[in-house]
């Protein structure tokens, strides 16, 4: 299994390196000017030149993303648990959440600045929370409620109460749904943090390094900041995958009978 994972990393690595090579070659071969599209090698140079600043910025933006991510997950899961308990609340809230989730929530960033202050990190974190909350809530609530009727019948035959059913059936049933949401929101939290930083918040974060570098036509520095942000996003995505693996060992085993109501398992 582990070996499969590692060999699975091979092809994307090869394609990635080849892609960078192609990029380098095209920029060089066609003489594309560096401020339009810098070569990967010059991005690497800017990265190492500005490493202390970029590392610090990546760290700070990462903190915004992770703190907002955690808060959004906690809020989403808690509300999902509450709505599962009260069916009418669930029926009223879920369609609403689905609708809100379909709106461009990042557009709220400037408004959050007015609400939570433009100098602190709070308004940036609020954007991340707002982005993370809805997918987590919607998916977790689905996983908690879309339990196979046979499983509920079995628990009723044991005279199990709602609390026991929640613990023994609903929560394990919701784990794969939650994991799917996590895979989406983990990298999304970094995007949300950066977009929020475009509009305000403390200086020297990935977001405002990108905007100010671009303003001074230092696109190569902007690209270096984007590279750092990508690394942070990939790191969070990898953490989400890892969490998924350790929390659901039964999904790792090979087996023919795919469960009825759980979202597809990635191979």
């Amino acid at each position: 299994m582990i070996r499969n994972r590692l060999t699975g990393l091979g092809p994307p690595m090869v394609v990635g390196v080849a892609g960078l090579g192609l990029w380098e070659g095209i920029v060089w071969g066609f003489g594309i000017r560096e401020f339009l599209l810098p070569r990967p090698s010059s991005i690497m140079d800017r990265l190492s030149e500005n490493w202390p600043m970029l590392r610090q910025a990546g760290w700070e933006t990462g903190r915004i993303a992770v703190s907002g991510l955690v808060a959004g997950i906690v809020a989403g899961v808690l509300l999902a648990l509450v709505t599962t308990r009260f069916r009418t609340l669930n029926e009223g809230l879920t369609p609403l959440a689905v609708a809100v989730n379909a709106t461009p929530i990042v557009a709220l960033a400037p408004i959050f600045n007015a609400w939570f202050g433009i100098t602190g990190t709070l308004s940036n974190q609020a954007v991340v929370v707002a982005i993370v909350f809805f997918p987590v809530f919607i998916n977790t609530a689905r996983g908690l409620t879309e339990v196979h009727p046979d499983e509920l019948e079995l628990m009723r035959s044991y005279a199990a109460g709602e609390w026991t059913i929640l613990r023994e059936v609903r929560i394990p049933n919701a784990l794969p749904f939650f994991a799917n949401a996590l895979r989406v929101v983990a990298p999304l939290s970094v995007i949300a943090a950066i977009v929020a930083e475009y509009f305000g918040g403390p200086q020297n974060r990935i977001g405002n390094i990108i905007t100010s570098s671009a303003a001074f036509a230092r696109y190569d520095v902007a690209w270096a900041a984007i590279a750092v942000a990508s690394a942070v996003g990939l790191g969070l995505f990898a953490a989400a995958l890892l969490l998924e693996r350790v929390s659901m060992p039964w999904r790792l085993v090979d087996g023919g009978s795919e469960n009825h109501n759980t979202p597809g398992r990635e191979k």
Partner: protein
Amino acid sequence: MSQPVASEVAVVVSGVHKVFNVDSADEVTALSDIDLTIGAGEFVSLIGPSGCGKSTLLRLIGDLLTPSVGEVTVFGKPAHAARLDQDYGMVFQHAGLFDWRRVAANIELPLELRGWSRVDRAARSAEMLELVRLPEFGGHYPRQLSGGMQQRVSIARALSFQPKLLLMDEPFGALDEMTREHMQLELLRIWRETGTTVVFVTHSVSESTFLSSRVVVLSARPGRIHSIVDVDLGDRTDDTREDPAFFAKATEVREALRGRGGAR
């Protein structure tokens, strides 16, 4: 149509009708006029064409459904009270194992809910796995098992807490002939040793004849009791399957199934 002599009564179904989706376009009368008394310690099979309401009757006894008319008593209590007292174990038509629990942990679930200690649970699930001939599979996840193996685990789960009443919905349907015959004998052994009452749904004439003391033959649309065949073949062994008396009874059940009121 003899009713068991006054001794303790396990299940009484009286004047039961069950209608699904009342007052809507797809209203279905699943069962009508069901009267059935099952004595404690009896082994009763329900047989009838697909859709005649066998599973529905079993669910009514288990208080997983409530009758539209009539009432169901289990061990002298309303079915609802019996369910809350966890008086019965049920094997569903679909194995219904929890994906996230290993096989042994699935078997131990009802024991866990009854507050058994870890050690007792482990001992019992090992014993049950032995019984259903899956001793080496306790550590597997259900999805690593075939359908028939999963069904055996679900039987082990229902037997694990030795309920006074076993409700089984086509439990051996997914098993191969050899395993099925083995499980039939094991079930009869458990039934004799524990004195439990069994209500057993099946499609198979020979299975119902081999296992039961009475076979309840249902007819379809609406589901009614067509007739009840008493089967008195003494203690069953593998030889019973070749006994002329067994064939005679099986023929009687088959005739009843074909009788008027049979579906289609």
